[in-house]
């Protein structure tokens, strides 16, 4: 359940930005979550509502932008898409893969007023 501390991290960013960007209410939060970021989206949604309660983002809608996992196949010498870390290359079946995308966890955008 580290999703709860991720939500606390989101709230910290929102509160820090509120001062510098001059807003008092957050209506929507867009999160980019990579398929390999180790985040359970349903747990994150649950934690989000709990953590945002009593904050300036208490009624905020959470929008999740999913980013697929990506890896470099050392056999095929090209990028391929993977859903899990233990996936094989869909073309050659090799597990000699270097993950190079889909690990990010980012607050992309906020709708504020």
């Amino acid at each position: 359940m580290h999703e709860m501390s991720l939500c606390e991290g989101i709230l910290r960013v929102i509160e820090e930005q509120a001062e510098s960007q001059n807003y008092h209410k957050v209506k929507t939060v867009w999160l980019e979550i990579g398929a390999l970021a180790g985040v359970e989206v349903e747990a994150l949604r649950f934690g989000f509502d709990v953590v945002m309660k009593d904050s300036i983002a208490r009624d905020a809608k959470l929008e999740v932008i999913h980013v697929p996992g990506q890896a470099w196949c050392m056999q095929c010498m090209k990028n391929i898409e993977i859903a899990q870390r233990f996936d094989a290359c869909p073309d050659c079946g090799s597990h000699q893969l270097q993950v190079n995308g889909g690990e990010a966890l980012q607050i992309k955008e906020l709708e504020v007023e």
Partner: protein
Amino acid sequence: MCIDCGCASADKSNEVKIDGHHHHSHDPHTSESRKLRIEVDILGKNNEYAAKNRSVFSARNILALNLVSSPGSGKTSLLTKTLTDLKPSHAMAVIEGDQQTANDAERIRETGVAAVQINTGKGCHLDAHMVGHAMENLGLENNSLLFIENVGNLVCPAEFDLGEAHKVAILSVTEGEDKPLKYPDMFHAADVMILNKVDLLPYVNFDVEKCIAYARRVNPGIEVIQLSATQGTGMNHWYQWLDAKRPHQQAKEA
């Protein structure tokens, strides 16, 4: 009816005061809503603390290791054996993470090595900020080894960089050999997998080769060390690994 602005809501629970004014979630005095593109990493704060810890380790020539595993894999036994064996030749310290109790730190201190216990309470992992404070309380020596024993959990600690040089994943042969596939993020994040309790192999149904193959599926470069912390088998392999990872330059005494 609300007495402050006359709106229909009587529910004070979703009310906040901003700059001494009174607002509701359905704020009738609407201001313009706008979109802000911020692109901030959620783990950014933790990563900043981790970078700070890492620069302390580097300046003082400390090899910091983050030990991760399920509860009961024998992390603390591996540590107490390591500390006892290496104490004559190595300066060492330990940061112990558990949800509750100081039992593990006490077990460590019995070896004569300094240890600080962090209780995470409800938390399921250590973060770089907690480790930074623990470092202040430890009085770390230059050119030493720092073992950070994370909370027994193969999921959450994978995502939190503590500033360590390497994550060391410990798996015991009394667990399932498919754990690297069940918890791929952790075995991907680790640089070495220690297979502990190998003295029990004759009594359990654990396929070592299969386990190593699974681990390399999620992390082709992962190193594997097989040992038994209680019997001492394979411990030399682990000590050689530790010495090989220590920074070569010696930090000057402050």
